[in-house]
């Protein structure tokens, strides 16, 4: 039996040697050509090329083939490519099975031609068995909301929100902290190389353009509490925490508050009270907020200012959006106590230096301006994990450049200062090389250490001493006395990034950052349709790269929602009413509430709401009668694949 008129074409890709160097593609073609239902089997150097796709299209268009197997690379790369090719030729794109004989075969079994070839044959046979029972399917079309939720009001979130608004898309921007601006605002007066413009200027300008646009709703001091729904139709619940302020206040309100905490806006180098004032000119919103965890409700501020309202309650807002962009940013790496002298007076992180420069307009150690400063690079970065508890293997990309920027800034403030850079490699890529070159020209000294011999920082009397073996001078141990030691620390995913990954079920890479589907094919897409990522939530990067990634995410979200509808894959559950006895076993298994009991003529049966079903299949094992099935992957198909894999049970 070959099933009702299924005519299968099998196309085996060489991937220009990636596959054919290990897998005997000719033998695969020869073997699977004998399978019942297969009308043609061919091999080709690049199936994904236009010529390769044309092979499939021609066979489908002529009617010779109505079901297709392509054996090539991972389905994540090209399943969609070939489904589209079949559609173009007038075929049904779901009469298709994509077999991975590269990542899951030739690359994993290099050097075992026989084994890899057998495996490729086995997998194509299973695909053929699948298609013998396949039926044409069509996409589920659903209206899409013309709006986007942007999570995170830092540089990436601001850029993406503004892009979308300007393209005519309704935007909801949610920021966790009481003010927009994120980490970029905290860079303050530091100029962004090579543009010679302070980061905060860029933040301010974006905020200025965004605020007041009718397409935009901004929630600060707010969190995304829950997200349900699917691409095109997400229901989002936002919790907005009270600011405890109805408006602005005259006078220096912060002075009346007796509570003290480290000021996060200056990376903890200064103190603040429980009253959080707009941290910079042009901040949004321009009214203060109370840090209620610190506040003991003493009421002094309420007496000083009529705008204070300690009776405010949190609010919950619900919105519907078509797409979501997660731009939840990074947090600076926090060195352990003792790591490169952390904890000794005069040892600070790069972020703390930035905070001090912005807050105090300079840096003082023991009340004196430092005469010498040592920047130690890669603290917490580029470390092998073993022994380096808490440290990171990856390079944080921006820190070399940020350190050079800060060093030049320091030299401007303190012209006589001696600056040493103790680094492994100076990664001032691209145009940033000019910054490295400038630092050298102005007299900064560069020392390079190897991973095996990291520098040590000690306190000797009232001085700090950095000991390091300099690979640039035959690895002699140098002893550099310093007033100030700056630990150049990298980026880690922010708490908000970790929280949103958990809440939205987004994947994170081994480095903890949000994971894109593919760095080149789907660089801002996540595994979940309609959810995109941008900025430093995805990877450490600098200002320009963050802006580009944000606009790229906005482009993807815009093209999704501007169309006004989405097409969903048809792989959802369905009930064979003739087998269902309404036992309700499947209903309790479904986490999405997609199954309900309905009347069908004289009796009751289970029924699936296709828009709510996510196609996970969790309901499948619950049914005692196998009445509930997954469209596009039925029990019968899986059973035939199992039977056919080893070459028996071919005529099931």
């Amino acid at each position, binding site marked *: 039996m070959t099933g009702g008129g299924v005519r299968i074409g099998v196309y085996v890709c060489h991937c220009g040697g990636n596959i054919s160097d290990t897998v005997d593609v000719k033998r695969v073609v020869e073997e699977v050509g004998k399978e019942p239902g297969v009308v043609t089997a061919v091999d080709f150097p690049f199936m994904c090329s236009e010529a390769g796709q044309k092979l499939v299209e021609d066979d489908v268009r002529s009617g010779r083939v109505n079901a297709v197997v392509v054996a090539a690379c991972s*389905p994540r790369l090209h399943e969609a490519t070939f489904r589209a090719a079949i559609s173009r030729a007038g075929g049904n794109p779901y009469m298709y099975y994509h077999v991975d004989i590269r990542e899951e075969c*030739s690359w994993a079994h290099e050097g075992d031609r026989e084994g890899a070839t057998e495996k490729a044959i086995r997998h194509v046979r299973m695909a053929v068995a699948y298609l013998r029972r396949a039926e044409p399917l069509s996409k589920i079309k659903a209206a899409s909301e013309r709006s986007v939720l942007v999570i995170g009001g830092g540089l990436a979130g601001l850029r993406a929100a503004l892009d979308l608004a300007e393209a005519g898309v309704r935007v909801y921007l949610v920021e966790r902290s009481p003010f927009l601006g994120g980490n970029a605002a905290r860079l303050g007066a530091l100029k962004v190389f090579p543009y010679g413009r302070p980061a905060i200027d860029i933040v301010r300008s974006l905020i200025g353009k965004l605020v007041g646009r009718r397409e935009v709703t901004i929630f600060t001091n707010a969190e995304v509490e829950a997200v349900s729904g699917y691409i095109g139709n997400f229901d989002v619940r936002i919790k907005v925490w009270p600011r405890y302020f109805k408006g602005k206040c005259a006078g220096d309100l912060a002075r009346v508050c007796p509570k003290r905490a480290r000021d996060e806006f200056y990376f903890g180098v200064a103190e603040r009270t429980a009253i959080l004032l707009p941290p910079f000119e042009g901040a949004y919103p321009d009214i203060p907020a109370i840090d209620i965890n610190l506040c003991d409700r003493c009421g002094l501020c309420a007496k000083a200012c009529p705008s204070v309202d300690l009776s405010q309650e949190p609010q919950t807002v619900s919105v519907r959006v078509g797409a979501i962009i997660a731009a939840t940013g990074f947090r600076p790496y926090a060195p352990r106590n003792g790591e490169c002298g952390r904890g000794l007076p005069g040892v600070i992180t790069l972020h703390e230096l930035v905070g001090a420069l912005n807050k105090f307009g300079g840096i003082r150690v023991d009340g004196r301006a430092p005469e010498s400063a040592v920047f130690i690079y890669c603290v917490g970065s580029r470390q092998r994990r073993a022994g380096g508890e808490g440290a990171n293997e990856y390079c944080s990309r921006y820190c070399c450049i940020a350190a050079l920027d800060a060093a030049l800034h320091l030299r401007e403030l303190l012209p006589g200062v001696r600056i040493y850079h103790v680094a492994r490699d100076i990664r001032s890529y691209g145009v940033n090389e000019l910054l490295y070159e400038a630092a050298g020209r102005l007299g900064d000294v560069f020392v390079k250490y190897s991973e095996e011999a990291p520098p040590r920082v000690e306190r000797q009397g009232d001085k700090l001493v950095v000991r390091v073996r300099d690979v640039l001078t035959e690895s002699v141990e140098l002893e550099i006395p310093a007033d100030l030691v700056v630990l150049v620390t990298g980026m880690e995913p922010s708490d908000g990034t970790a929280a949103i990954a958990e809440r939205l079920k987004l994947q994170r890479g081994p480095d903890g950052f949000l994971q894109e589907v593919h760095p080149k094919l789907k660089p801002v897409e996540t*595994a979940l349709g309609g959810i995109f990522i941008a900025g430093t939530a995805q990877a450490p990067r600098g200002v320009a790269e963050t802006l580009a990634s944000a606009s790229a995410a906005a482009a993807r979200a815009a093209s999704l929602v501007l169309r006004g509808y989405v097409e969903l894959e048809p792989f959802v559950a369905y009930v064979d009413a003739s087998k269902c006895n309404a036992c309700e076993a499947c209903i309790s298994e479904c986490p999405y509430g997609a199954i309900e009991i309905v009347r069908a003529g004289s009796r009751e049966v289970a029924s699936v709401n296709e828009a709510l079903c996510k196609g996970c299949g969790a309901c499948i094992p619950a049914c005692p009668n196998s009445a509930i099935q997954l469209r596009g992957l039925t029990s019968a198909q899986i059973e035939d694949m199992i039977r056919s894999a080893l070459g028996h049970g071919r005529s099931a």
Partner: protein
Amino acid sequence: MTRAPQILVFTTSTISDPGVASAGLMRLKYPPQTAIIRVPCSSMIRPEWIVLAIESGFDGVFVAADGTDCPYLRDCTERTARGVEAAQKILASRGVEPERVRMAAVCSVCGEAFVRIINDFFNALSRLGPVRL
């Protein structure tokens, strides 16, 4: 000559299948006597399929589960484990060693973990020898 054990692997489209693929990307080696079926989520696997695999000539079945990365279900691991245990019981009742069925979570970048597990499973199945039904 003894035949190498044949293993059926269930993977999930968004999590463990990319994980298995990542082993190939890293050029990590594991036995080619493996056959892979992709499902959306490991919780959908019916115990009968696992039993059928053993009946059809496979020496073992490995379920590469979503674990805590599951995009659909918080309790994916528990649900998948239920199906695996049910299959093990059916097999045991027919005199087939339940250790011929294994499950472990394989995350989307866990190629190394997958290779370690599958190599270990392959060796264990080699020691068990052929299925006696």
